[in-house]
């Protein structure tokens, strides 16, 4: 198998890492570099630069790169998702995710080896030529009379039935499409109710909520800010977010306030 510059040898110069791609992979797998801190877009850009400098696209290397980067992206997207037991996005345990990733890497590797085996076989076989001259017409002519019924007409009817079949409806759970289960209006009402106490912690507003509800609540909060009904403060990144009712002219519907 020809072994040109492998994707693994791609030289990277990233914020958190400088060196060949395979070393980065190894370090990630050994947890010496935090995948969350690696900007994968930069890896892709470095790869594109590398391709441009080579002036040609080596499909073998490109495939290897795509498989590796796709595996990293998948791993990273899993890392970035909050862990939530009843969340259907995270139906794989860490062990299962690793097994799945391993299975894919082995599959890909197996068929790339098989492919080079086939290529070598075809090359070895290409010296044999087969005759393609059509047999003399007089030896070929079959008479209609000699033809007997060998096919079942039902075969055509069955084929028609298959062709008339629509695919089964798409299973939405399977597709990981999450339908909104909450409305912004409902979350606005929820926040306004909490605001009657003067202030509250955002965590409290979304306690036990699923991710869609959290997002919708955040959206509702932004809406309250726009309407001038609430302000918030966060003392440090990832810290608590305190939401307070904004001091307004008398007659606002927000009720009592406390700074």
């Amino acid at each position, binding site marked *: 198998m020809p072994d040109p510059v492998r994707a693994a040898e791609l030289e990277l110069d990233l914020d958190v890492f400088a060196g060949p791609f395979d070393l980065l992979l190894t370090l990630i797998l050994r947890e010496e570099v935090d995948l969350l801190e690696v900007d994968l877009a930069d890896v892709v850009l470095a790869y594109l630069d590398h391709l441009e400098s080579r002036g040609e696209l080596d499909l073998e290397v490109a495939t290897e790169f795509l498989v590796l980067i796709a595996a990293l992206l998948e791993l990273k997207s899993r890392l970035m998702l909050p862990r939530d037991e009843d969340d259907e996005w995270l139906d794989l345990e860490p062990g299962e995710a690793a097994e799945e990733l391993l299975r894919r890497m082995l599959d890909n590797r197996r068929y790339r080896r098989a492919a080079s085996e086939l290529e070598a076989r075809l090359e070895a076989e290409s010296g044999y030529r087969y005759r393609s001259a059509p047999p003399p017409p007089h030896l070929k002519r079959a008479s209609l009379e000699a033809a007997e019924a060998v096919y079942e007409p039902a075969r055509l009817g069955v084929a028609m039935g298959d062709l008339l079949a*629509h695919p089964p409806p798409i299973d939405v759970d399977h597709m990981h499409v999450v339908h909104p289960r909450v409305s912004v209006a409902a979350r606005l009402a929820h926040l306004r109710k909490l605001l009657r106490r003067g202030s509250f912690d955002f965590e409290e507003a979304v306690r036990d909520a699923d991710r869609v509800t959290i997002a919708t609540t955040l959206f509702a909060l932004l809406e309250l800010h726009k309407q001038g009904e609430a302000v918030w403060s966060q003392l440090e990144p990832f810290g608590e977010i305190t939401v307070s009712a904004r001091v307004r002219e008398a007659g606002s519907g927000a009720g009592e306030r406390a700074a």
Partner: protein
Amino acid sequence: MRDLDRTVEALLFLSNDPVTVPELAEAARAGEGEVVESLARLRENYAEGFRGIVLREVAGGFTLATDPSTEPAARRLLAKPRTPPLTPAQAETLAIVAYLQPVSRPEIARIRGVASDSATSTLHDRGLIEERGRSQFGAVLYRTTDLFLRLFGLRTLDDLPDPGQWDPTPEEEGELRDRLIRAGEARAGHAETPAHT
């Protein structure tokens, strides 16, 4: 056998038409005299009455052909209507032609959701379908043949089974043609969705 004889034998074997001495000499990178000698040796090897293949000199040059004594067997092998089992692609294509005829390749492809050129060609080669004019857009139209009727044991096209008994959605309204195209487009859209692990 000498190398040149092997090469000349191979060239005669592969060529559809008789080959001349200059053509053989050029391809084999040999002199014409050498090729003539080589042909003489091959001719002994392939003299009539000894093998199933004979070497003949005809108007245009030299050619290999089968011995006339083997013709009855050759006809039995080659002349019978070729009726291997239909592949799914062929069965679907043939059903479309049988029920909708005349029908064009693009329409077949639209209903099946994939190009069906190879199935159409095979059915055509086997004599199950034939061309019947062209559509208003210039595409060749196909219909079934008498051999088709014979091989399916049908007297006329009216004897084709009613697809209704295999119809998965019999409640749906519409012409068979329109319904097939709608279903084909729905499948084509769906097939791109990756399978889940």
